[in-house]
């Protein structure tokens, strides 16, 4: 079962995990990205490409379901404005074996970073700046090709 959501509402982690657990799998792996509180960023703004974003995330979840023996894959990405400590992204996988759940979870977050049309803007005391892509993200995604 695939679940993809792109929503300005806060991410309900408990609800997402419960849905994965309900798949009857033995193991659930998750990764949650949170707005950091340590580098002066007061708020984060996520812009995306409506329509294309949902399609890209579905394609990614389907690729993970094909590659590993998963019972569920969830990708939830928040958009709009959020403050330090709030969740930006949640990826979760359910599988009979932990190795598959953990690998697929890493795959989803690695590829989401390069394969889905989101753009981050940080708001600091002095103003706003668009976040630059990191070379390490491209390397991490390429690792799965």
């Amino acid at each position, binding site marked *: 079962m695939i679940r993809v959501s792109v929503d300005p509402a806060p991410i309900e982690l408990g609800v997402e995990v419960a849905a994965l657990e309900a798949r009857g799998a033995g193991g659930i792996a998750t990764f949650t*990205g949170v707005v950091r509180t340590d580098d002066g960023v007061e708020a984060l703004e*996520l*812009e*995306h*490409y409506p*329509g*294309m974003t949902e*399609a890209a995330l579905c394609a990614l979840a389907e690729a993970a379901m094909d590659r590993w023996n998963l019972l569920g894959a969830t990708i939830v*990405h928040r958009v709009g404005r959020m403050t330090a400590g709030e969740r*930006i*992204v949640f990826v979760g996988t359910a599988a009979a074996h932990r190795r598959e759940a953990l690998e697929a979870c890493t795959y989803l*977050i690695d590829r*989401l*970073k*390069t*394969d*889905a*049309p*989101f*753009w*981050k*803007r940080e708001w600091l005391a002095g103003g706003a700046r*668009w*976040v*630059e*892509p990191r070379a390490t*993200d491209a390397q991490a995604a390429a690792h799965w090709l």
Partner: protein
Amino acid sequence: MAITMLYFAWVRERVGIGEEVIDPPEVVRNVADLIDWLSRRSDGHAAALSEPAKLRAAIDQRFVGLDAELGNAREVALFPPVTGG
């Protein structure tokens, strides 16, 4: 043929609008040609599109390289490299 252009992030900010409908001439064959042609529409377009190496593109909601042919594209998007997750 009319193409809907979409701009995101700082490309959108510099162009000054997020969406416009254009009708480029036949000589505009690929995304790089389109960027060059669009950059002459306004100072905003010029500011946004002056360095194609910093731009990424999608045709009909699929990522493409700047050398991709427009073909029968109905929607073309230009934006910086993505930074989600």
